[in-house]
């Protein structure tokens, strides 16, 4: 897919590249492709990669995008992939000012991909890797039949959120077969309680019965712990299954592919607000201070406000991100940070605070390197920002059947935000026991943090895990504050209070 940019856009690209470099944005080489709407829908349906493994869900996405475009419901402006070189797509027929805006925006994204530490372990040759995955899976399909492979992929995708979302630095799993460990460790640990030497008649005083019992109990507990499998609850359920589920070679490989892609996409989900905020910050800076011509101002303003607009009651990551970056820049420019500022209790003084330290730019570059959405909001979202952005929490009112504004207290807003972002809004599921009831059954535990799982989906997912694990699968969770054990034995779902 090589489409040369027309001279006008080529020139604009060069101009924007120089400006971006001048600001210190450090990107991979960026290759812009000019494609028509159908091509952009195709690529978008495949998640940005021209070659993916065959699967119907891409077709579904394509169907949806195509119809949305045809009926004018939505339109893709920007599509950029984290790869070296970085590929980005421009849609043919968009006005030149839009194309420029997208280019500037893409420079922001690419800088973020390259420099944010959460992306540091991602595969920068993912374009090729995805194509390799496609080839492998196509081979399996040729050998085993489309439906067999597709059904298996469906099962894998059904649990592709059960990875250790925050361990982006962990590439290979460190789960080991416990049997090896068990023998090693057992030889090191005492098997019976140590006794002091004593004469017979002193035995009961030197080695009192109760003490010996206690010691033996401790040793037994220690051994039981060693026998646990996995040793510690395992958050990377996919890795656990790859290692220990009775899968065939091709199945293992497909599950690994699904896992690898899940890990690849994880940092993008973890930095959505920051990434979009950063890119928006830079497109607005580059456009308004350099590139924009007089005749383009209106169109630019229209497009930009469309990007950062939020309907009442909605939170737009672009808006949130750009505003927070700007806020940080201003605070660090004026020196509104540190002990002295924090301890100042005069709101008037705080309001007018300006030490003219001018550290803003430097600070936001640092922030874009070190943070993800959770730490970003946790560190920088404060009361002033909350009020200024009119943030509130909302909830569902069962009585009226409507969503309502609940509170405007900034601490609650922040808590709610952080909560919804933790683990990307995904439930935390751990492998607790791979030999549950000593029958080779799988026990998963849902770390319940206030929200119940959707019951229907959960049972369907358990069924899928059952087909991977091959033995009964259990899930410990809570419904309406009541601990429940959901079990599937291949025939039906059992539900009992635990």
């Amino acid at each position, binding site marked *: 897919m090589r489409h040369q940019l027309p001279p006008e856009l080529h020139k604009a690209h060069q101009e924007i590249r120089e400006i971006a470099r001048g600001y210190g944005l450090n990107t991979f080489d960026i290759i812009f492709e000019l494609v028509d709407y159908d091509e952009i829908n195709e690529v978008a349906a495949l998640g940005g990669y021209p070659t993916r493994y065959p699967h119907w869900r891409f077709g579904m996405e394509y169907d949806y995008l195509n119809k949305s475009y045809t009926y004018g419901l939505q339109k893709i402006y920007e599509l950029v992939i984290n790869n070296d070189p970085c590929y980005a797509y421009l849609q043919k027929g968009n006005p030149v000012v839009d194309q420029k805006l997208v280019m500037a925006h893409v420079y922001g994204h690419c800088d973020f991909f390259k420099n944010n530490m959460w992306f540091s372990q991602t595969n920068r040759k993912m374009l090729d890797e995805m194509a390799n995955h496609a080839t492998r899976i196509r081979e399996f399909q040729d050998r085993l039949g489309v439906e067999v492979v597709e059904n298996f992929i469906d099962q894998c995708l059904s649990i592709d959120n059960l990875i250790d979302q925050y361990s982006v630095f962990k590439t290979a799993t460190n789960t080991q077969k416990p049997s090896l460990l068990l023998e090693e460790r057992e030889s090191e640990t005492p098997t019976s309680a140590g006794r002091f030497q004593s004469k017979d008649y002193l035995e009961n005083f030197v080695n009192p019965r109760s003490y010996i019992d206690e010691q033996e109990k401790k040793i037994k507990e220690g051994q039981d712990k060693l026998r646990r499998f996995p040793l510690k609850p395992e958050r990377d359920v996919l890795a656990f299954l790859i290692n220990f589920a009775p899968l065939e070679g091709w199945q293992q490989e497909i599950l690994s592919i699904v896992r690898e892609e899940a890990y690849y996409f994880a940092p993008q989900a973890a930095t959505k607000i920051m990434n979009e905020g950063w890119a928006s910050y830079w497109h607005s800076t580059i456009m308004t201070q350099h590139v924009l011509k007089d005749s383009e101002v209106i169109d630019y303003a229209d497009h930009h406000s469309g990007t950062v607009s939020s309907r009442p009651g909605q939170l737009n990551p672009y808006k949130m991100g750009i505003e927070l970056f700007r806020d940080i820049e201003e605070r660090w420019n004026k020196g509104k940070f540190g002990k002295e500022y924090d301890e100042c209790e005069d709101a008037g003084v705080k309001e007018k605070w300006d030490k003219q330290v001018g550290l803003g730019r430097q600070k936001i570059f640092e922030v874009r390197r070190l943070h993800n959405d959770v730490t970003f909001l946790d560190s920088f979202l404060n009361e002033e920002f909350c009020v200024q952005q009119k943030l509130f929490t909302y909830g569902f009112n069962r009585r009226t059947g*409507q969503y309502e504004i609940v509170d405007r207290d900034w601490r609650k807003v922040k808590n709610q935000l952080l909560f919804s972002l933790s683990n990307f809004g995904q439930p935390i599921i751990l492998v607790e026991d791979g030999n549950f009831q000593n029958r080779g059954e799988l026990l998963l535990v849902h770390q319940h943090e206030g929200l119940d799982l959707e019951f229907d989906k959960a049972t369907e997912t358990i069924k899928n895990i059952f087909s991977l694990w091959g033995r009964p699968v259990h899930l410990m969770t809570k419904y309406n504050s009541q601990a429940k054990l959901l079990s599937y034995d291949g025939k039906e779902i059992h539900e009992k209070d635990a």
Partner: protein
Amino acid sequence: MITGIKRDHQRFKQIVKGKIKQNLKKYMTQGEIIGRQGKDYVRIPVHQIDLPHFRFGQRQSGGVGSGDGQPGTSLGQEGEQNGQKAGSSEGEHTLDVEVTLQELAEMLAQELELPRIQPKGQGSLSSQKNKYTGIHNVGPNSLRHLKRTYREALKRQIISGLYDPKNPVIVPIKRDFRFRTWKNIQKPQNNALIVYMMDVSGSMGDEQKEIVRTESFWIDTWIRSNYKDIDIRYIIHDAAAREVDENTFYHTRESGGTLISSAYKLCLDLISKEYPIDEWNIYVFHFSDGDNWSAEDTKLCVDLLKADLVPKCNLFCYGQVESRYGSGQFIKDLMENFQEEGRLVTSKIENKEAIYRSLKEFLGKGK
């Protein structure tokens, strides 16, 4: 360029059609796909297929938004609010899937295990078609067959020793020329006539009409897929019968008594005037709540059916839609009188769920 997505798209469509097939029974009784009809296809709404995940239930989870308003201010109904989550994750959308009537008929046939219809009077009506199949040595220049002509000329030159391999020039003369010719192909053509009759007397309510509408949609789909040309006529009756168009048929409500014979007379009249029975496959469907005015009229109906109407038809179907008011006597009378007659089928349709069974009764005969 990218071929992958097209294949994925095809595969997706296949899967969706599989879903429709699985749920055909549901679609058959709900009638929601009627009215979403194009010329050759119907649009069927299918819920987006998704892969199950462990995920949080929607309701409990509140969220953070921005904008004006006091605590307690409503943000709208559940459905509208979907947007909040949709900002970052994909929302749920319904897909409209286009299925051709032919495909739908095939699904129907498989679901109900319908036999193919054996049209009567096969070949009695034929259409002519020209097909270019042969070669002739005379003909118009426009049909000249260059290759054959060349071959003939080559043959002749070799035989007569005029052919020089070093200078292979072939010059055809008049008798070398070959021309394409055509044959008249007689194709048997089967036409079908469907006559729908419905009782619109006061006792037939909206619910009953809805059932008739759904049922007739599927009957249409099936018969259409079996014949090339189809005429559909509609007759409504209370004490008197008249022919109407489709819209009127489904939306008329009269009050007054019921003389079923009036409809049968009109139907008979229509058939004998316009549709010679050796050229048309005739299907008659009559829906009523089974409440006829008098026993005499029922007698008249039975006579009409026995003597004239049933012998003319491939199939005469009587569907009795249960209603609160009807006595439902008529179906019993018919069953009594036509036990032996394979071309007359009766079926009781108590409610929407019964549409499925009744379709099978009507169409399961393969006539």
